[in-house]
């Protein structure tokens, strides 16, 4: 059971928080420029691939997926989940301080709750083992996959 994370592992968790939220924001900004895509205008999707916002959004989301899987290789799903939720906080803070939108009291309360959730989980171990989860199971699976 690991209680302390390596600096590189903290970096992965921070990458997850930042790439998911900023990637989504860039993608939605880019798609707003491209216009509405429906069945009659599927060609617009091809057009979207040349939009700089869409391109950078996709690159960030690929980075998110890679770091998310890396984190899951050494941490529990229930440990990584609050980190992904922290992305909502990043989006809300970006819209407040970058886009100068006003945040309602509800949003501030939501930010506070998610920050608390991250705090609860971060204080515990990153990987828990179930005593009746034998290691052989993993070996058997990898054998079946060959």
């Amino acid at each position, binding site marked *: 059971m690991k209680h302390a994370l390596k600096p590189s592992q903290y970096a992965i968790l921070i990458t997850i928080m930042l790439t998911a939220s900023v990637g989504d924001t860039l993608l939605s900004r880019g798609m707003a420029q491209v216009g509405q895509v429906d069945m009659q205008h599927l060609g617009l999707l091809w057009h979207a691939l040349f939009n700089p916002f869409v391109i950078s959004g996709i690159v960030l989301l690929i980075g998110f997926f890679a770091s998310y*899987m*890396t984190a*899951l*290789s*050494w941490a*529990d*799903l*229930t*440990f990584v*989940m*609050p980190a992904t*939720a922290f992305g*909502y*906080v990043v989006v*809300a803070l970006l819209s407040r301080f970058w886009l100068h939108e006003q945040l*309602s009291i*509800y*949003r501030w*309360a*939501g*930010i*506070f*709750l*998610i920050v*608390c*959730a*991250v705090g*609860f*989980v971060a*204080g*515990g171990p990153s990987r*828990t*083992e*179930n005593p*009746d*989860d034998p290691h052989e199971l*993993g070996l058997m*699976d*990898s054998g*079946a*996959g060959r």
Partner: protein
Amino acid sequence: MTLHTSELLHQWSAITGVAALAIAGEVLIASAMRDLGDLDNHRTGPGLKGYLGPIKAVLSSPKFLTGAACMALNFFAMLWALSIVDLSLAAPAIASLTYIGNAICAKLVLGENVDRRRWLAVLFVCIGVVLISK
């Protein structure tokens, strides 16, 4: 009244379906990564080329491929769901249901030790997500 109920049922089954796909995808991918263990141990050498090892290990895991397929389906199901449910209801509802389902499946399927602290975190995240999207 009956029309209203059936419409509600339609909307919530879309929301539950999208969340179920997300949960299946995340739990399968988490299980695949748990089986593989720390990806650093799959590194074949220094530099960028060393990352070929982990990439190959991940891509040859059937669990990962099934999970990724669920995620892809989830993406298209989400687009479809947004055509019958408003984004302001769909986004927080799907996110909250996914968090709760993930925690339950992490305990039952992945065998993670979800203690009181983590349940509390799931609850806070759910309420927080709903508040933030208000």
